[in-house]
């Protein structure tokens, strides 16, 4: 494993040094704009600290109001991190919030541990609880995940109510946050600074992740899990880690909340979980400001609106309904609508009416070359006696063997149900065979999951392209580089602040852009959302994502599905070009004309067994093949 990690880093360093000129051409902000962003960030930070200073020296009420809003802001943004980016709708955040608050209070109270020590303790402790909750998502997803975490909150509340040590329904007085030492007391209230810094750290971390190369990967885990796994993402681990981070933030929010004075079970029950989710959705899910706006609105509205309480609640509910019915994306949608009304939007620079044919550039530029290790002789891929069945009865694959030589194009054909897709899934690690062995580039990869295989040089595409529809073709393509970029997930939390992060984003964008050009996609499409592109462009994007990391072995699962005739020729040229670069390509296809035209060797499967394997011409003239497959 260590060798692979080192190799990944070495290869990435090579790429980084190899494409500085490419990075200059694309993906880097013009120098003055980069400077502008830096100035903006520093200016924003100064303004934030100045505002904190003003609040810390301001009225007690404003302090309390803003600290409550900030704490719910942390909760909302931490929930948005898991709900918006990874699709885990957690209703467990009130429970996590409670654990943070009660841990801080009880540990400080019972054992006298200083609160500054306890803050990181709460973060880690609740993060671990979150890792456990996140692990539940491996068993259940979607609504069931929401339900399971909902029960978690119920259980936490019941413990708080029914046990002595938590003070029962009456609750507990929170700990006191230590004042600044004498010299620093001009800064004002120390708690305000503490909350402001925690808020800044949490929001900063989430915004960094949103700006990082991990962001498209997280969306892929949410919307297109197999696609992410095929790019080398350990989706389960990443999901659990993201949930743990989110939980840790909720724990910090709870710890900060306990300093506001008083905690009792009613402040952490399931309705609070729902309220946090309402904050996220009402503000605008998966947006920078939405969760914070939602939290501010919900925590401040009842205090700042001094009207008859019954009318106030009616108004509160009516605003929920009106906002969400007319602006399903919440406050952010409403603000955008007003903004558009005030400032008519310029049409984006993309050519408006591009037809699909024009999108694809016939002039194929150089596609990425296979890494040097692929040039060795011998077999690129070998399957030995693969046996697999979906249930106890019939076998989908009954002892299939397959040998693919380096630098060849190998076709895999067979009638529907012959086991082609199953075999591909076994090679790619999505399915584990009952017996048999798979070898890639001379190394046995049995027991490695789908996410571990890209680091062995194996990449694949899927029959019907499933990608993240709300981000650009370019961003989707960068997902393919996941296995090439060292420690991407760990660095994501501070990505745009790290010079290496900014550099890697540039390199990744340049590499992805070059690859999209290489598969012949007009640059005008690169920045278009996948939701808005025609099918052919989507297929090419998927192809680009699978070769952007320069695999040595590439599996294309029905790359021609739904393509027009002209596009088929285009794909043929790309595949041949890949072979020229030393990439071994395995193509699963129904279009026999394409297979026998392009492939060096062909294997025919029928009913889970190999009918014939050999040079394309020989297979084509085989009688049994004609009988079972070509129907002649």
């Amino acid at each position, binding site marked *: 494993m260590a060798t692979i990690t080192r190799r990944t880093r070495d290869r990435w360093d090579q790429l980084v040094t190899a494409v500085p000129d490419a990075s200059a051409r694309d993906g880097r902000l013009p120098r003055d704009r980069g400077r502008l962003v830096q100035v903006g960030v520093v200016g924003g930070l100064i303004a934030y600290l100045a505002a904190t200073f003003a609040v810390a020296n301001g*009225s*007690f*009420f*404003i*302090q*309390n*109001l803003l600290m*409550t809003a900030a704490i719910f802001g942390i909760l909302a943004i931490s929930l948005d991190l898991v709900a918006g980016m990874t699709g885990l709708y957690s209703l467990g955040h009130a429970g996590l919030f409670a654990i943070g608050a009660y841990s801080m209070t009880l540990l400080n109270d019972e054992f006298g541990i200083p609160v500054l020590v306890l803050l990181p303790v709460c973060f880690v402790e609740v993060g671990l609880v979150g890792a456990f909750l996140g692990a539940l998502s491996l068993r259940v997803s979607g609504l069931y995940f929401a339900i399971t975490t909902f029960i978690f909150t119920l259980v936490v509340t019941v413990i708080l*109510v*029914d046990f002595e040590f938590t003070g*029962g*329904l*009456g*609750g507990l*007085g929170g700990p*006191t946050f230590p004042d600044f030492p004498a010299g620093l007391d001009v800064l004002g209230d120390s708690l305000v600074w503490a909350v402001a810094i925690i808020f800044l750290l949490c929001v900063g971390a989430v915004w960094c992740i949103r700006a990082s190369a991990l962001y498209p990967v997280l969306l892929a885990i949410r919307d297109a899990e197999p696609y992410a796994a095929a790019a080398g993402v350990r989706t389960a681990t990443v999901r659990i880690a993201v949930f743990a981070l989110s939980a840790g933030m909720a724990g910090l929010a709870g710890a900060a909340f306990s300093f*506001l*004075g*008083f*905690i*009792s079970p*009613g*402040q952490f029950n399931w309705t609070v979980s729902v309220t946090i989710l309402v904050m996220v959705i009402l503000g605008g899910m998966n947006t920078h400001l939405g969760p914070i706006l939602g939290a501010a609105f919900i*925590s401040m*509205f*009842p*205090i*700042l*609106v*001094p*009207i*008859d*309480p*019954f*009318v*106030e*609640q009616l*108004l509160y509910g*009516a*605003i929920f309904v*009106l*906002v969400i*019915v*007319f*602006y399903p994306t919440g406050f952010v949608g*409403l603000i955008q*609508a*007003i903004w558009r*009304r005030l400032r008519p939007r310029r049409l984006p620079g993309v050519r408006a009416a591009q037809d699909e044919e024009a999108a694809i550039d016939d002039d194929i530029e150089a596609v990425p070359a296979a890494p040097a290790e692929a040039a060795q002789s011998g077999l690129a891929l070998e399957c030995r006696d693969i046996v697999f069945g979906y249930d106890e009865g019939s076998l989908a694959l009954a002892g299939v063997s397959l040998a693919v030589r380096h630098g060849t194009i190998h076709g895999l054909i067979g009638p529907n149900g012959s086991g082609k897709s199953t075999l591909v899934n076994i090679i790619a690690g999505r399915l584990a065979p009952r017996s048999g062995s798979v070898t890639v580039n001379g190394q046995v990869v049995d027991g490695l999951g789908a996410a571990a295989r890209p680091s062995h040089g194996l990449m694949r595409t899927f029959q019907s392209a499933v990608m993240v529809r709300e981000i650009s073709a370019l961003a989707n393509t960068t997902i393919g580089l996941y296995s090439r970029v060292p420690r991407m997930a760990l660095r994501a939390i501070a990505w745009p602040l790290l010079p290496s992060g900014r550099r890697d984003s540039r390199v990744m964008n340049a590499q992805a852009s070059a690859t999209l050009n290489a598969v012949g996609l007009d640059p005008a499409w690169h920045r278009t959302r996948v939701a808005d592109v025609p099918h052919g462009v989507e297929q090419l994007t998927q192809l680009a994502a699978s070769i952007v990391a320069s695999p040595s072995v590439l599996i294309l699962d029905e790359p021609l599905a739904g393509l027009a005739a002209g596009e088929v020729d285009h794909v043929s040229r790309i595949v041949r070009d890949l072979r020229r670069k030393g990439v071994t390509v395995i193509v699963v296809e129904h279009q026999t004309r394409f297979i026998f035209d392009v492939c060096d060797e062909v294997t025919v499967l029928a009913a889970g067994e190999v009918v014939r394997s050999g040079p394309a011409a020989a297979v084509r003239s085989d009688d049994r093949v004609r009988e079972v497959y070509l129907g002649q």
Partner: protein
Amino acid sequence: MNRRRFAATLAVGVLVLAGCSGTPSGSGAGAGGDTLLLGGIAGTTGAYGTTGQAVVNGTQVAVDEINAAGGILGKQVRFEWEDDGADPTKSSQLFSKYLSDGAIAIAGSPDTGPTTVELSTKNNFPIIGAVDDCGLTVYTEGPDKPPAPYAFCTSLNTFAYGGIIGQHALDNCEALAVLHDPSTYGMGGLYGIQSTYEATGRKIVLDESITENWSTGATVGLRAEIDKINDAGADCVDVWLTPQDQANFISEARSLGATFTVYGNDETNADTTFSDLAGDAADGYVAAEITTRLNPAQALLDFRKTYKDKFKVDATPFAELSYDAAKVLKDVAEKAKSTEPAKLQAEFNKVTDFPGLFGPLTFTEQRHATLDAEHLTIVVFDKGSKEWKPEG
């Protein structure tokens, strides 16, 4: 669609503006700098909202009278209150609001008492009136330990009610069972009953803690409790739950043919919620009443008339006792010649025999709840006259 959305944007905007520019709740003598602010926190919505409303209204009547008589220390008093919806988070936000707006004290809260008590202690800031129903909420460590230093509760006192009900049960029952909610309110009642029992060396035979939801009016199925009471051999039971749960319990028990005597709590007869819901089943139900309320003095009758004229509803003890609290505050501030919290606290601790609507009120360092068991009389519901009548 575009036009509709624009209309919606407008509608939302107008709603928000309407909300923000609404008149502040409560009234006052203008927002000039030369006024004193009295804050109010009470749950005026939720299933239990009438109590909070009574607290607010009673305080308002007192503040109006104080202002008509020249205010406190020559300054007019502004009474501002907000609904806490029985939510501790909101209660604590409101507390900080009044604190930073320079209030001289806060009245309440009857619904989030533990929160306001904790915050009053932390911030050395006086809270007065209906601090929950006194009891364990104010004496957080028990009646023998010092009370919360800044909470001065004039409201009904769970210790006192528990005490007199316990005493009556000692004299009239073979075995007593208690159903109570687990909050400081219910625990306070239980404490009062238990201490009278322990003083004579006897024990209650069944003590069941039932989680209720005061803000949503939840009622659990109480059938299992009725069986448990019968199994425990109790001939009396005290139901220290919400009035609607008490009504449900007595109806259920009577239709199942249970014959035990049922006691209520301080809320049972505070208004007509219980007796309206329970109907005939309430006959013979035992509760306690402030003795002077049975033979009201002229001041109390006057207050009730003013109150009824102003709010179109009958005054409840919560309104009457909250009125007293504001009146005591005026007296204390004028004696202290200051509205500083520490001076107010010192002077509050010296209040002796202040003429309240029900009789003299006294606070000392150790005594932060005005009402005691000796101020109470046992009453029994009579279905004929639909009234609570003194026993005998």
